[in-house]
């Protein structure tokens, strides 16, 4: 089976553009997941430096934010 190069011409340029935009979104959300992870780690760290009644709640907020970022990445991967 050889690749029929003539079929490549039929590939819609729009589809390539969509794939490019999807890749850009994925890179953006990937970077955001790293940011959210660093934020969650730093919140953990600061929560141990200054201990207030609010610390567990803020730590939870950090992890929820990380989950949201991962959710957005997966959503983009599957939905676009």
């Amino acid at each position, binding site marked *: 089976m050889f690749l029929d190069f003539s079929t490549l011409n039929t590939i819609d340029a729009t589809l390539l553009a*969509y794939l490019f*935009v999807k890749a850009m*979104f994925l890179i*953006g*959300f990937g970077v*955001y997941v790293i*940011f*959210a992870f*660093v*934020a969650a780690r*730093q*919140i953990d*760290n*600061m929560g*141990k*430096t*200054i*201990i*207030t*009644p*609010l610390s567990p709640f*803020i730590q939870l*907020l*950090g992890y929820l*934010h990380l989950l*949201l*970022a991962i959710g*957005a990445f997966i*959503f*983009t991967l599957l*939905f*676009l």
Partner: protein
Amino acid sequence: MMVEQEPAKNPFRAFAPKPVNTFFDTVDSDETVLLLLRQHPITQVKWVLIAILLIFVPFLLSFVNILGFLPLRFHMVAGIGWYLMIIGFSLESFLSWFFNAYIITDERVIDVDFKSLLFKNVSFAKFEKIEDINFTSSGTLGTIFDYGTVVIQTAAAIDEFEFEDVPFPSQVTAFLNDMLTEVERQNGPRRNS
């Protein structure tokens, strides 16, 4: 003065005398937190307003139809990304305010700097090392809302502590002076070398 005040139960307070259930990691067993300070809430209004304005940007862009060439599902993901960024911006701004705290205990002053997610610095100075305390309150907002910067000169490794934009700087300075007097009374006057 501060000792007579009611303990602060609200963990969001920027001026919290004897904050309830509040400690720091290097606290000694017999050390008591007498005052916890953060920047005055009015100094945080700027990022709150920016975050609120950013919420409405997608609505404005929908009139220009800048993403019109993309299918609707791309618009949706772009919206999710935008609001996620606003959440990230707000979270980091809030954390910078909340964890950028100044603590006065019965033994020392502590400056916890949390400038960004990647930078943290904690400095301590015992009362014995404090040489001079002064404060500045400037600007219209500073005068109206009574906040300013308390500068503490020390003979410690960190020669200057700055409590930036804290509420009631004159009260904080007076309290620190009272503490210094108390320490001098207990230890005897310091010799300047």
